[in-house]
């Protein structure tokens, strides 16, 4: 099975713990969202998976084989990241050619289609592109290589709304034409929420959510009403945050609601979206530190 499995991955820089006991499995042909606040270690984790840096401890296995670093399957994983690993003075068509050589195969058709759609001139040098166009170019490469698992780290950096929309469509097109695992690490949660099947949320060096999107959304509620009614109802439920608006009291819940408990008339129970839940889940300690 083309499963990528991380077991007890830990990363320390000096005394600072960046990742602590990360256990994750990336299943084949699934679109993942890897979410986390700034500096939480998303990129570090992706760099470890793709063998750009080493973990302090823990193992990564691919197709049930533990990887040791030397035998890392270069062509099975591909990371598109913010850091620029290409020579800036190289022309785009040269970079495409080199990537194709290095990765063994390349989807020329999709590449040409994306270059035309976004208006990228293959004769230009990488250094002549704006931030947004550089992102588009790198995302294009990531979608055209034959990797089984593609990691897109902030694939929409510097892209305007139109280009983001186009890129999402190309991601889906690439996925449909050749299903593979795609991991989207991004801040723009709202836009990718419907694109993903499985959510992984990193917070404070650990994985706090690793569930199908559907499950996460089913447990995300906002319950509002008079304070005492809300509090009575929310007892023993996992409360993420509360807010007060005059006499209106609002509780954000991440839990299954008890089916046996009757819902009082004066309560309003609604589902909230992934972004809201993400904010409430990851806010807590961030704010306390300030």
């Amino acid at each position, binding site marked *: 099975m083309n499963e990528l499995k991380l077991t007890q991955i830990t990363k320390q820089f000096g005394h600072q713990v960046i990742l602590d006991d990360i256990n994750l499995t990336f299943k084949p042909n*699934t*679109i993942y969202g890897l979410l986390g606040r700034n500096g939480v270690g998303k990129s570090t984790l992706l760099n470890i998976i793709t063998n750009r840096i080493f973990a302090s401890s823990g193992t990564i296995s691919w197709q049930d084989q533990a990887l040791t670093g030397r035998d890392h399957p270069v062509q099975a994983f591909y990371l598109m990241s913010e850091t620029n690993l290409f020579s800036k003075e190289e022309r785009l068509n040269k970079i495409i050619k080199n990537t194709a050589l290095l990765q063994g195969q390349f989807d020329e058709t999709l590449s040409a289609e994306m270059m035309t759609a976004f208006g990228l001139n293959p004769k230009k040098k990488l250094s002549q592109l704006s931030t947004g166009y550089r992102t588009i170019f790198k995302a294009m490469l990531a979608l055209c290589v034959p990797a089984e698992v593609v990691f897109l780290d902030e694939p929409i950096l510097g892209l305007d709304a139109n280009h983001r*929309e186009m890129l*999402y*469509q190309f991601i*889906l*097109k690439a*996925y*449909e034409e050749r299903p593979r695992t795609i991991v989207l690490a991004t801040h723009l949660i709202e*836009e990718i929420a*419907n*694109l*993903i*099947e499985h959510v992984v949320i990193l917070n404070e060096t650990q994985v706090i959510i690793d569930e199908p*999107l*559907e499950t996460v*959304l*089913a447990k*995300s509620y906002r319950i509002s009403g008079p304070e005492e009614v809300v509090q009575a109802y929310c007892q023993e439920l996992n409360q993420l945050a509360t807010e007060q608006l005059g006499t209106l009291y609002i509780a954000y819940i991440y839990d299954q609601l008890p089916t046996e408990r009757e819902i009082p008339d004066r309560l309003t129970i*609604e*589902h*909230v*979206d992934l972004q809201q839940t993400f904010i409430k889940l990851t806010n807590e300690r961030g704010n306390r530190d300030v």
Partner: protein
Amino acid sequence: MLFEFNNDEPLYRQIANQIEEGIFTGIFPPDSQVPSTTELSRQFNLNPATVLKGMNQLVTAGLIEKKRGLGMFVTETAPAQITEKRQAAFYQQHVQDLVKEAKQLNLTKTALLALIERGYDHE
């Protein structure tokens, strides 16, 4: 409008419900083709597996059927099935709420019946 999504229920169910609504209102008549999984997923940036799950619900319910190599088509019996299902749910979904609201507004049963009569006259 068809294909507007919210947080109220799982996305796959919204997809199923909205295609059902399209069949009910005649946008997708019997024997016509409904949008494909690929079309829906790309048009609205939805995960293909989610769209497929919604479609499969409709297939299981017998509202659409797959024609190999052609796509998904509305079945002959779909409109009748939907009408029957909605008639069964009408009391629970509409009548109960209507009576509850009328009571809160201090409308008597006679007054409510009169209002319903008026609604029919205006048709």
